[in-house]
């Protein structure tokens, strides 16, 4: 028993119908609003696009878009709450004004439909989402956005974390999950390049980014505006299909849809279209992906340091003796000078804990080239831990160290971020080194499990410290990190 149904209207009839008055007015608003949302309003962005430093930079600028809007309100709500969306509201207001003017100007116009404009607006939005999400996805696909917690972080109480750090870290605990999320974003973004898969891509994007945006609000992750931006754009893409979905599934009526697609008018149109499209797809999926791979595995532009620390020294250390200016100090949890415990990471970070309030770096810990600028391991974490970056002089058995949690000026950062290391030995004792507070400590390794450190601290006290490695296993399972082509640990 087949069910026979009749379609009362044939598809072609829709083409001749004009849009209703309110449909046209609505479209004018939508058009202006989304153009304002998508087209960058930031001159610096254009400078970067027209004078890029490299192909990668050019692509990253295009894919990242300009995240700054018209205005940023300097208040708590302006950064974290309702007011952080002010640019959206302003765009809406401008679009209302623009649509009104357009409607007045067009009162005698004979234009019945805005098919072509609507189509190209959708194309713009599709490519905006696609490029943005692919860029989002690659930093997870090659898992660097959320590294596995460092040893010091594994030994930090839950209460000492800022919420946003716990959110990032729970993803970082599993590289499989992170890679999956990255793949999902790249795939859903890529689906928007092709007309047949736009609906599926937009549904996935709206869902995934809604969750990301809400999580960013829930944990103060600071990317809530940018992620909800993609939700809004994805919903806009779905808007066109809602009447058909309603009619077919809810009202259970036959549906014949008509969606405008431009025709190839001239001979060169078709090869030009396919050529351009293929270039974009190849550039932003494969070439961009290759660059991301290179920056991760061959260059070490990451959130986590890459220079190896003392060989085979990684671990959690108890402080078995601590001599301050020759005097032995006993451990007390209230002590602000005598170390409580210490950690050598597999990379060149030495962490020690004392009972002292630190000013907490509340940044996200963005990727850099220079290991000193890789702050992810300590941003948003308290608990009296101090993070030292060190360079090893193995002939002299000396470590040159600087505190990582210090404010570097913009010029200093720029200068540092040209290579992986700092070259502390050369700076030690010089004016520039003194401004960074470079320390020099002698180290000794009597046994594989013991490290002795000796030298002056930042206030000129003479320290002699003996560290013994603690045998420790973590319930979070085995740590993971991606092997790079630069170093072995």
């Amino acid at each position, binding site marked *: 028993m087949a*069910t026979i149904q009749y379609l009362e209207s044939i598809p072609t009839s829709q083409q001749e119908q004009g849009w209703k008055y309110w449909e046209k007015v609505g479209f004018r608003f939508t058009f202006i609003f989304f153009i304002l949302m998508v087209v960058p309003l930031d001159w610096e962005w254009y400078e970067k696009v027209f004078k890029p430093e490299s192909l990668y930079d050019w692509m990253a600028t295009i894919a990242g878009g300009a995240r700054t809007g018209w205005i940023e309100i300097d208040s708590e709500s302006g950064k974290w709450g309702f007011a952080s969306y002010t640019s959206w509201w302003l765009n809406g207001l401008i679009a209302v004004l623009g649509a009104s003017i357009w409607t007045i100007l067009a009162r005698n116009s004979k234009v019945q439909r805005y098919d072509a404009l609507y189509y190209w607006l959708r194309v713009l939005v599709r490519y905006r989402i696609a490029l943005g999400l692919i860029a989002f996805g690659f930093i997870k696909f090659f898992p660097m956005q959320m590294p596995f917690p460092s040893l010091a972080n594994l030994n930090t109480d839950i209460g*000492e974390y800022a919420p946003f750090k716990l959110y990032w870290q729970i993803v970082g605990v599993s590289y499989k999950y992170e890679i999956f999320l990255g793949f999902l974003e790249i795939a859903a973004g890529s689906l928007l390049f092709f007309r047949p898969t736009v609906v599926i891509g937009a549904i996935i994007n709206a869902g995934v980014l809604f969750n990301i945006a*809400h999580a960013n609000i*829930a944990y103060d992750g600071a990317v809530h505006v940018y992620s909800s931006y993609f939700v809004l754009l994805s919903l806009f893409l779905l808007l066109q299909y809602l009447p058909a979905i309603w009619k077919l599934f*809810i009202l259970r009526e036959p549906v014949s*849809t008509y969606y405008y697609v431009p025709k190839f008018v001239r001979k060169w149109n078709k090869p030009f279209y396919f050529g351009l499209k293929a270039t974009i797809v190849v550039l932003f999926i494969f070439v961009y992906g290759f660059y991301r791979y290179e920056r991760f595995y061959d260059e070490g532009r990451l959130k986590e340091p890459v220079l190896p620390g003392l060989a085979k020294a990684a671990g959690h250390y108890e402080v078995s003796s601590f001599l301050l200016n020759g005097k032995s100090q006993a451990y007390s949890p209230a002590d602000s000078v005598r170390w409580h415990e210490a950690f050598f990471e597999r990379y060149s970070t030495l962490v020690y804990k004392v009972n002292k309030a630190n000013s907490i770096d509340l940044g996200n810990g963005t990727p850099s080239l220079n290991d000193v600028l890789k702050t992810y391991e300590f941003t948003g974490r*308290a608990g009296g831990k101090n993070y030292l970056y060190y360079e090893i002089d193995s002939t002299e058995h000396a470590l040159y160290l600087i505190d990582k949690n210090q404010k570097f000026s913009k010029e200093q950062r720029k200068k540092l971020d040209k290579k992986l290391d700092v070259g502390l030995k050369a700076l030690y004792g010089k004016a520039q080194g003194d401004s960074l507070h470079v320390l020099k400590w002698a180290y000794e390794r009597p046994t594989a499990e013991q490290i002795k450190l000796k030298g002056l601290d930042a206030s000129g006290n003479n320290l002699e410290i003996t560290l013994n490695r603690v045998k420790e296993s973590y*319930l979070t399972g085995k740590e993971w990190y991606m092997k790079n082509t630069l170093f072995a640990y």
Partner: protein
Amino acid sequence: MTTFADSHFFKRYRSAILYIGLIFFLILSIPYDPNLFTGSSFADLFSLENWFGLATYRTSFIAESPFVGSDVHGYYNWAIALALALLLFWAFGRKIRQTFQADDDRVFYWLRVLLRYRLALAITFIGLVKIIPIQLPEPTISELHTEYGDFLLWKLYYLTNGIATAGYLPVIGALEILGGLFLLNRRTAIIGSGLLIAVLLNVVIVNYVYEIGEQVYSSFLLLLAVVIFSYDWPRFYQLLIKKAATIPDGFWPVYGRRVAGIRPYLQAVFLLLIAVFSVQAYLSWKNSDYPFPDEKGLEGAAGVYDVKDFVWKGDTIPYSLTDTLRWKDVVFEKWNTLSIRGNRSVKVDSLKPRIAFNRERNYEYLGNGGREFFGYTSKKGSDKSTTTIKLTGKVSKGHTFAFIVKRPDKRTVLLDGVNQLGDSLHVRLEKVNKKYLLHEGRRKPIRIY
């Protein structure tokens, strides 16, 4: 005019798949398990946890491991159910078809009815315990003072979700409920199942990644959602991918007189069930500290304490991060739980977390390997300034202490007593005024220890 003929979802030669699927899902959906109710009295039958247990029932020929982890033996139950279904169909298939005397479209319709209601029941209950924060509470003081690496993965996942603000969890719960309610109507079933595929796909992956232990069950729910969605897939494909003319589902169920009469009542009962569970869950949450114990702790003692003095069998042991006897810090919860952080590793209870009001409230110590948890009973002494408390280990039940508690001032607690072996212990605890970065957040510049 264009004429379209709706093709049958199940071609004739595929109809065996349909019947086998029906038997398969019947076996896996109907709670006939005699073990389900053992150990609970008749009064318990209508308790919250039994409602929840029934709604999220899973058929277990082979019992699933009660522990968290990567064990997925539960899938054997699917295999057994499939084998049974094949066997039954092979043996009685012809007879079944003759007695039903229904065409495949009708059988598939009833199969979808079964799956829709089965999934809706489970997912609305699962969503409710997120809206009412029963499943994922905020971290306790003990948890704030446990190191990240001392938690099992599932606990870290739960804790991270527990600290979310801005209605993050309630919204996820609401989406689950919404998906469930959409399943109750034939027309909206595609939206409901589509929504639930998205939500459940993440749930399944999260279960695998964080070894939460419900890998098998969550994938069963996902399977239900996929089967329900698959019915509308050809139309979805035609309308939204091919973007061609599409005709709606041509199947309209025709009910017999008896079914038509009873149907509205069954639907009302179903909604009532959800309503009753909501009210019950809300009241239980409101009138109780669930998932934490209900008994109050020592008055005004809640907080974290520094262990100032520690005298073991007459020997004073100084502060140490290595001595295996010395305590590092002690937490009194608001309820009658005390937790101690020492320097030796603690046995971890790796039971799965579950909704269980009437059983031991074990959520606070499950998956925590950084602290040892004790429950305690307190008695006022003859002179009013002293209290005696008896501590019993929650994981190692043999580990006990009996202490006389003195509280010379608001911040100090003195414990004097013996452990289960009669070793004497004197401890002086001093409350620490602790500020947590977790609560301060990142909105303002902050200097904090």
